[in-house]
């Protein structure tokens, strides 16, 4: 009886890449080769010939390794899409779409700055809608079996996207706009950041938290045996 585990491990190591194979995969492939070998021996072949027959199951170990990795990547990719990107896209579309509708309907925001001074811009009706959007994003993510940061990331994605835009645009604005002082720029960043990132983010996450609580309450109780 040959040591097929050692054989598979060695072939994978020789195939390059990271040089280390996933142990359950090694185990499973070794069991398969052992079955082929045993079957060949049972037909009356000598051990050396049976070994050669089993070896012929894989002509190119590098290709096998690549095929296995590709199969797993495909799975991981589709999982990321359903657990994170799909709910994120929905919250982004609904979140900013609702704001666009309010602006189109000429709903006026509440502003704290007076006479050109930079202040907060609060679209109260928009902020009231955001927990629903966040809850929907969290529901979609949880339904796809996402947990932890993915749920909150997907729910708060409109705020995350706004933060990314700010972080990209603000350093350029500081460099280009030389007419305003550094204090004013910092006030602008703080005011815009609060209006478009922090407040919406809090409301979206509040929706995700409420959805999580509602989901837990809806589940049947589990009793320990």
């Amino acid at each position, binding site marked *: 009886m040959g040591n097929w585990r050692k054989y598979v491990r060695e072939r994978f190591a020789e195939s390059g890449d990271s040089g280390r194979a996933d142990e*359950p*995969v090694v*185990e*499973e492939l070794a*069991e398969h080769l052992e079955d082929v070998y045993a079957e060949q021996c049972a037909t009356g072949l000598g051990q050396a010939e049976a070994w050669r027959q089993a070896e012929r199951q894989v*002509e190119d170990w590098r290709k*096998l390794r690549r095929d296995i990795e590709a199969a797993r990547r495909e799975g*991981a990719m589709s999982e990321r899409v359903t657990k994170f990107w799909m709910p994120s896209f929905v919250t982004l579309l609904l979140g900013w779409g609702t704001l666009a509708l309010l602006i189109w309907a000429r709903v006026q925001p509440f502003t704290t700055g007076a006479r050109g001074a930079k202040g907060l811009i609060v679209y109260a009706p928009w902020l009231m809608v955001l927990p629903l959007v966040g809850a929907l994003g969290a529901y979609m993510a949880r339904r796809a079996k996402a947990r932890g940061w993915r749920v909150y990331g997907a729910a708060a994605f409109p705020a995350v996207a706004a933060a990314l835009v700010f972080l990209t645009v603000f350093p350029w604005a500081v460099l280009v706009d030389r007419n305003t002082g550094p204090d004013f720029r910092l006030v602008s960043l703080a005011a815009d950041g609060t209006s478009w990132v922090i407040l919406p983010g809090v409301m979206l996450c509040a929706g995700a938290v409420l959805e999580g609580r509602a989901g837990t309450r809806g589940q049947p109780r589990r009793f320990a045996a």
Partner: protein
Amino acid sequence: MIRTELKRGTAELAILSVLEHGPLHGYEIGRQIEARSRGALCYTLAALYPLLYRMEHRGWLKAGWETGANGKPRRCYRLTAKGKKMLTPMRAEWADLFRALRRVAKVSHG
């Protein structure tokens, strides 16, 4: 023997079909396909496992370690509800393909 490219396309349907009758480990899946196709469809380890892992990640199969008849742990694959749902349209699709081929190439059942 059927050419490799053609066989690869049939493998998903063949795997789902043999698992319809109960869970099997990889080697047994290959054996059953070979037996039921009377030796026309033979999948080597290199062809079978990447496909099994892909189908598992798609959620068509669920795999778990179970103790085999010889007391050794084996990774057994079973069909999921999603996998069962895939079978009917896949069978219809292949039937359509064979009908179309029959019309075009005058291929008939043996």
